[in-house]
């Protein structure tokens, strides 16, 4: 189980890394998905190894997958808008709002 959890942790960290460093917003979106998936792995692993009686964890991960998909859709739509307005989706350049 440690292996599963470690994989999840690595995945989460990779996602975190991506969110923190990607300049392209699409990249950030993808990294976010990685983080969600790390959570899913965690949940499924816990369900399988620690609490095998019920399917709660797996159920939870299904919900997460669905919601993450919905979230991604909205995110991509906003990215589109962003591109329309700024002709750019580089994260650093989008900073009119500050201070």
């Amino acid at each position: 189980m440690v292996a599963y959890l470690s994989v999840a942790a690595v995945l989460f960290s990779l996602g975190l890394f991506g969110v923190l460093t990607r300049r392209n917003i699409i990249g950030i979106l993808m990294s976010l998905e990685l983080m969600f998936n790390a959570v899913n792995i965690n949940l499924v692993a816990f369900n399988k190894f620690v609490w095998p009686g019920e399917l709660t964890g797996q159920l939870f991960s299904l919900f997460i997958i669905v919601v993450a998909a919905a979230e991604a859709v909205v995110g991509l739509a906003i990215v589109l808008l962003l591109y329309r307005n700024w002709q750019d989706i580089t994260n650093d350049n989008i900073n009119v709002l500050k201070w």
Partner: protein
Amino acid sequence: MNPQLPIVDLLETLRLMLPELFLFLWALVVITVDLFSSRKNDSLVGYTALAGIVITGVLLTIAGDGVAFGAMFVNDPFSFAFKIIFLGTAFMAVGSSFGITKQKIQNHRGEFYGLILFSTVGMMFLASSHELVSLYIGLELTTIPLFVLAAFYKDDKMSVESGIKYFVIGAFSSAMLLYGFSFLYGMTGTTNLGQMSFNLAANHIAHQSSGFVMIIANVTILAGIGFKLSLPPFHQWAPDVYEGAPTPVAAFLSVGSKAAGLVAFTKIFLIGLWGYISIEMTPSDWGLMVGVMSAVAMIIGNIVAIRQTNIKRMLAYSSIAQAGYIMIGMIALNEHGISSVVFYTFVYLFANMGAFACVTIFEDKTGTTEIANYKGLAQTSPFFAALLAIFMLSLAGIPPLGGFMAKYKVFAAGINQASAFNVDWLYWLVGVGLLTSVFSLYYYVNVIKQMYFTKDASIYKMTFNPPVLTVLIICFVGIMVTGIYPEPVFEFANKVYSTFAFSILK
């Protein structure tokens, strides 16, 4: 827990969920009405949405208390209180957005109102959820429409920017939250919050220390919710997003979304982790951590707000500070604690929504949100100026307005806890709260100063459309009533406390 699903009484469930279901359907209706109404009839959709909210409110009283879906969905006074707050927020946000639907987004009114209603439905689900999955769903249902709403001026760079920022940060915080959830699940094997606290308590007693995983879970969840509550250090998105988003949306965010965060916080920390914390708040639990965050929130929020020139940013920082005040009540786990949170949020709803409504009116009229432009308004629009002044004073906590009662209640809760258990740092926290509330006065009355203290009359004269006038009057009445005769609200807040989960556990 019983592995078999309980037999569901369908009618009972329906009754309990009636308001949410209705509002969900009504949101669809609103979008549909927009399709069929003519463009010239510019307020029909809005009134439809308002009517829906009012009807939902009525239904809410019918729904009553109870448990559905195997304790996934619980209606109790706590959820009722927050549902009222959410509906109120939605009502005021919709009410004050008639101006912008006339001018800026006339082609997308239906979607605008519909999304607000969807988000409200999410919040209401959140308020009733008693379980991690439904809590998560509720939270997402709340925020996803808000991403869209923040970016609703689709040709406005700032609005879109605020949308993307809100989106990335919102999604990120969800991920953090979920990561924590996964550990909670791993430790307890359940997603039901009540069960979770039992299991945790057992675990705690068995091992005498909850260990490392618990801390990771604690902190990541706190981070996730911290983003929603815009508590430092997770607060920095708030001013940017508030400034860029359409003003009613910013208002909705500042109250509704914050209240949703509070609900989530309460559910997880005060119910789910109840077995883990102890009433004395030993250093190993979340109390001190939240305390520090709340202190920093009050300090940063109030001090940075002093130098803001844009009223929306100013209100954003102010809302950061207000969150800090609420958290004092949250930390104080006594009879005043949770009821003070409810009361504070209730008052905050009126004051902040009122202030934002005024800002909306002003922005619709003049297209600007700079504080300096409010100069001399007291002479051309005395009613407007007086109301905004009252809202500001209430936010600053001057008696006999509601804001004072709320602050008093919160500080009373803090002092009570501190004196009952000799928690020294809680005294200091309350001290910081009081001190920063003096600072806060400076920027709140700065607006008043602009409006009143100049001899020259303003070049603007405010006009009100009926819904926004209604909103303003409701806010005014709300503030005055909670300030002068707050007893009914207090009584209800106390009922929330007495029926609240942890008090039953105790």
